[in-house]
């Protein structure tokens, strides 16, 4: 009975890693970031500045110790190490060859940014500072930026946890019990689409403290997509799974928690992703109106002082922050849904 066995284990052990668009000439690809970093340094030091930078803490440092050229030099050193590393260690090869052109491209964008601002002054101060100032601002305000990021993370985690938990509970109940579904769906369709931020005036009346208000807002923003996607996932579980489970002796607990919920997981993850996106938006807005801490609050504060270098610094940090959280959720998804055949890539 093993003659017809198509051996699946090699597929399971070593999934083919498809990296689309990897350049055909690896040497050029691997050295590209080094070249790009050298060009960036040349542009930075050799070309005259066309923009007049405002006074800042950077003025007390020699120009080669500014954070921007130091960071570019670090990229160059890192790229050289990676190039050597991938030549020596074959295990690094595909990752380095995949990443190198992307790093070079990112450095290229920063070069373009410096050229149109600091060097040629096509975009003017104070709204368009160059990378030297923005990197400087990031280093100067590193403590308050990290503190803001930490505060944002804490608020986001609290709100997201509340929204996900509530959404899972209502989603499962609405999805599993047809009678609840009958009464709840119209209400959900009516209340759910309200943008959470529109509820700010209402929520502010519930608590004196701004933190629970923000948690409630983020929770609401996450709760709606979680509820809708969980309930549709539960309600659309293939009946055959439930039938088979019942003939195996499953009771209601097993049917809900071991059949319906796992079967609905792909949907639930779509809800988690939509909820995460909604939570970012709500977080930033909540922080700019009520909460006196966090990335959104800092952004608004620096905008008030026309400190655009710090605004950009905050935006860059926020991008890293949100993107990291999104990546973490994708990793969790890939792990939890590893039983699925084809999954969307991040």
């Amino acid at each position, binding site marked *: 009975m093993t003659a017809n066995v198509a051996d699946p284990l090699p597929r399971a052990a070593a999934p083919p890693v498809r990296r689309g668009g990897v350049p055909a000439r690896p040497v050029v690809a691997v050295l590209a970031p080094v070249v790009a970093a050298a060009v960036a340094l040349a542009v930075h030091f050799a070309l005259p500045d066309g923009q007049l930078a405002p006074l800042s803490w950077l003025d007390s440092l020699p120009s080669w110790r500014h954070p921007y050229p130091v960071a570019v030099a670090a990229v160059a050193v890192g790229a050289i190490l990676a190039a050597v590393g991938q030549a020596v260690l074959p295990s690094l090869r595909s990752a380095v060859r995949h990443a190198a052109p992307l790093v070079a491209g990112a450095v290229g964008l920063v070069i373009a940014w410096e050229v149109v601002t600091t060097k040629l002054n096509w975009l003017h101060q104070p709204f368009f500072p160059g990378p030297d100032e923005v990197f400087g601002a990031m280093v100067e305000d590193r403590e308050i930026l990290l503190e803001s990021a930490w505060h944002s993370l804490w608020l986001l985690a609290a709100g997201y946890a509340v929204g996900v938990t509530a959404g899972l509970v209502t989603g499962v109940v609405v999805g599993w019990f047809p009678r609840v579904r009958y009464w709840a769906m119209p209400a959900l369709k009516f209340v759910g689409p309200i943008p959470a931020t529109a509820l700010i005036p209402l929520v502010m009346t519930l608590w004196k403290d701004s933190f629970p208000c923000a948690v409630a807002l983020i929770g609401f923003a996450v709760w709606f997509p979680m509820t809708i996607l969980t309930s549709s996932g539960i309600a659309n579980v*293939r009946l*055959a799974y439930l039938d088979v489970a019942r*003939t195996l002796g*499953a009771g209601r607990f*097993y049917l809900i928690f*071991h059949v319906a919920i796992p079967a609905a997981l792909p949907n639930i993850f779509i809800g988690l992703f939509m909820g995460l996106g909604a939570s970012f938006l709500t977080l930033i807005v909540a922080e700019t109106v009520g909460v006196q801490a966090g990335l959104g609050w800092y952004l608004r504060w620096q905008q008030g002082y026309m400190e655009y270098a710090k605004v950009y610094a905050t935006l860059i940090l926020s991008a890293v922050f949100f993107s990291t959280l999104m990546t973490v959720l994708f990793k969790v998804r890939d792990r939890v849904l590893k039983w699925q055949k084809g999954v969307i890539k991040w």
Partner: protein
Amino acid sequence: MNNPRAAEGAVLVARNVSKAFTAADGSTVVALERVSLEVAAGELVSLVGPSGCGKSTLLRLAAGLDHPTAGELTVGNEPIAGPSADRGLVFQDPTLFPWLTVRRNIEAGLAARGQLRRRRREVDEYLTLVGLDGFADAYPHQLSGGMAQRAALARALVNHPGVLLLDEPLGALDQFTRMRMQDELLRIWAARGTTMLLVTHDIDEALYLSDRIAVMSPRPGRIDRILDVALPRPRHRNDRRFLDLRSRLLEAFDLTCVEPAPASPPH
């Protein structure tokens, strides 16, 4: 039966069972009308018939997933009130839980009934029984159709059901895999003595496997006649008596007369 373990089967009885469904437009569709069938303990009975003759409906009633409109079904003299682990069900689609590995699928019945801790070690026996030892940790999407169906069979058997209800379990498999699986099914049946009720479209399969064949006809679904297959096992598909029974069965479906008269069958 000539083996010591043939003690698991239970008697399955359907008495004057009718089942009607209400269609979307409010009209009533009679899927089964006054069907009576008695399957002895350890017997293998096939239900054959064209689409819409109520074979699958009868199986679902026996599984307890639906309730008859009239009449009653019993297993071992107990009326069937709902689904139970005593009556295993295997569909044409293996319906393995895709989020569980093969091992965890087979364990599902034990886990659902809180017996997993006590009986975990039996699961390996079942993996061996259906020839999936090397695939315990594979996910269903990594299995071929035949392997998935064997896993589904093991998942039903681990509960030691008195009756195994098979709804075209081999219908989606290619010819070669199907013939191998038929032998597999007979091997398990002989080893366990489980009562089996098999729905099939395949007349040869019914003849090869069954003790008796219930021939059904549609609109409304009912059992027209029951054919005894008094052939010793192992059976040979080209045996004269096998072919005689085959033509009798085809006659029962009026299928012999649609063949052009002068042409001889390609054997």
